């Protein structure tokens, strides 16, 4: 089953909380959903009463979010006579006839001072009862974010898991030889350029509070690590030591980063405070140690090392000490990322000539190949652990894709403006 969902962005939708970032011109993202969960929840989201607002229809955004998760079947509502916006207007029989299990309705009112009030209800069609009811008093620029929040509420109520539609992603785009580090909503809308350069930018990493990005830029003709505030746009040089400075990864408390330096000789892992002080070497090998990734409890650092003769994933205590090998299947396992619950390790596995996203259960060591693409890089867990965002290649161009942690749901996201790569999924927006 293939559903194609085409979304064209509104270029001028400036995100107010990111006022200092520049809205990006290359803003068209297409999301293609392949496959889905074995059982999808049928839901009807009735277009919200919104007056003559020029803004996007809240129900469209909710429907797109729920569809993209692969866990919902968003039903076509236009053929139904009953178009309720409030609880009293609902005729459940018509929605039961459509075989909807849940019904979402709502309306948007303009308040004094140009603010908006968004009212939303989620109803159980079978039990004919209300599951959720909520009001949001918002600035006009927050309507899209509010729609994502409503989708998150629906998702959480009906699946029992935390929704991540209101989260953000970052990635690097390359257009006509110019690199741009961008942040966008999880659905690809509102892309904003954080920094751009004629030299490569790689390895963006979100701070746990979502307020800062660490990244590696080659603008000084060598890899240097920067940390940049997304609120003020200001940045500091985190590490510019002799040799390469790369692979930043934030500790879960946001106070430190694990980084990789070739300061002494070969690539080794160090920790450094978020203000660039307190450098401490963590690994001591004569081989490549790189791509550190913290466990969510902050106790372990997973990393890639070729100490066995080919790259495999190891872990060491965040305080240093001996490393234990974690991956054993195949001769090339790289780019570890630990799931938010600490149970799964996502990484890239090479089998033959194919580089694919794999996940390994850390307790059992059981590994599963998740993606069906062939040149995959940089897996990054969603903040709820359900999806894994990664970079792949299509027709010689970099593109982003996502796969669910069980391999059932697959999405492709492509920025039509150029090459995209190096995705990182940020934390939830509060």
């Amino acid at each position, binding site marked *: 089953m293939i559903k194609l969902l085409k979304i064209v962005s509104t270029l001028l939708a400036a995100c107010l909380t990111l006022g200092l970032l520049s809205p990006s011109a290359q803003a068209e993202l297409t999301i293609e959903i392949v496959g889905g969960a074995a059982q999808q929840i049928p839901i009807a989201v009735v277009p919200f009463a919104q007056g003559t607002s020029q803004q996007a229809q809240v129900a469209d955004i909710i429907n797109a979010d729920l569809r993209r998760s692969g866990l919902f079947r968003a039903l076509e509502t236009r053929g139904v006579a009953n178009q309720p916006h409030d609880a009293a207007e609902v005729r459940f029989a018509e929605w039961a006839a459509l075989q909807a299990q849940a019904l979402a309705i709502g309306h948007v009112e303009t308040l004094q001072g140009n603010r908006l009030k968004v009212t939303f209800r989620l109803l159980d069609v079978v039990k004919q009862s209300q599951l959720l009811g909520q009001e949001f008093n918002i600035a006009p620029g927050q309507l899209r974010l509010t729609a994502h929040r409503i989708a998150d509420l629906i998702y959480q109520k009906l699946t029992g898991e935390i929704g991540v539609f209101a989260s953000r992603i970052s990635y690097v785009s390359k257009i006509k030889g110019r690199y741009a580090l961008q942040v966008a909503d999880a659905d690809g809308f509102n892309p904003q350029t954080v920094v751009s350069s004629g030299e490569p930018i790689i390895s963006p990493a979100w701070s746990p509070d979502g307020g800062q990005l660490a990244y590696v830029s080659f603008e000084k003709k060598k*890899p240097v690590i920067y940390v940049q505030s997304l609120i003020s746009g200001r940045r500091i040089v985190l590490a510019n030591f002799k040799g390469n400075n790369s692979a930043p990864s934030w500790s879960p408390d946001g106070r430190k980063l694990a980084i990789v330096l070739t300061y002494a000789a070969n690539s080794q892992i160090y920790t450094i405070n978020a203000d660039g002080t307190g450098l401490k070497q963590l690994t001591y090998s004569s081989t490549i140690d*790189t791509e550190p990734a913290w466990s969510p409890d902050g106790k372990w650092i997973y990393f890639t090392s070729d100490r066995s003769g080919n790259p495999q994933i190891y872990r060491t205590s965040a305080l240093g000490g001996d490393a234990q090998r974690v991956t054993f299947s195949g001769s090339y396992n790289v780019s570890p990322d630990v799931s938010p619950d600490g149970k799964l390790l996502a990484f890239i596995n090479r089998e033959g000539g194919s580089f694919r996203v794999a996940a390994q259960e850390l307790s059992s060591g059981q590994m599963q190949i998740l993606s069906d693409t062939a040149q995959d890089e940089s897996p990054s867990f969603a903040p709820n652990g359900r999806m894994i965002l990664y970079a792949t290649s299509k027709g010689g161009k970099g593109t982003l894709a996502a796969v669910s942690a069980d391999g059932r749901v697959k999405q492709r996201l492509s920025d039509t403006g150029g090459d995209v790569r190096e995705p990182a999924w940020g934390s939830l927006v509060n």
Partner: protein
Amino acid sequence: MNKHLIGSVLLSLLLGACSSSPIKDLPKVEDKSPASANAGVAPEASGAQTSGQASDSSSSVNPLKDPNNILSKRSVYFDFDKYEVKSEYRPVVDAHAKYLLEHPAAKVTLQGNCDDRGSREYNLALGQRRSVAVKKVLNLSGVQDKQIETVSYGEEKAHTNCADETCFAQDRRADVFYENE
């Protein structure tokens, strides 16, 4: 017309640097004009010859730029996920070692590169290992660290649309760059 010639010579040199095949088919350019002898240098320098340097350059070609000299070979190629300098590249590296020993003021940057498959960060580390591997061969011949800088661009300069191994193999290399060239 000179500019055109310089461009084609530059292109030939670049192509030569990207290939492990012999460069003997290159057109002979060294005795055409003073400008062509300096083809690898910035074009404006060659266009502004004033001193007696011009008359000398036709007879003493810069060995680093002479396509008939092994020093014009600047690339060492590696196997997938490997950073050992293969014996077939020892003559090239040894020639640069000899040059550096004879020219103590000369400095080189060794830039490691990878093909574009796999992890960017791992490839950055691997590219560094490749540049360091070449440095160690230079060190064996007695070249001091102060004449050598090692850097890595990982897979950032690699072809992005390789369809076969021949193409990938072109990207797995360490390049020798002399200071000011």
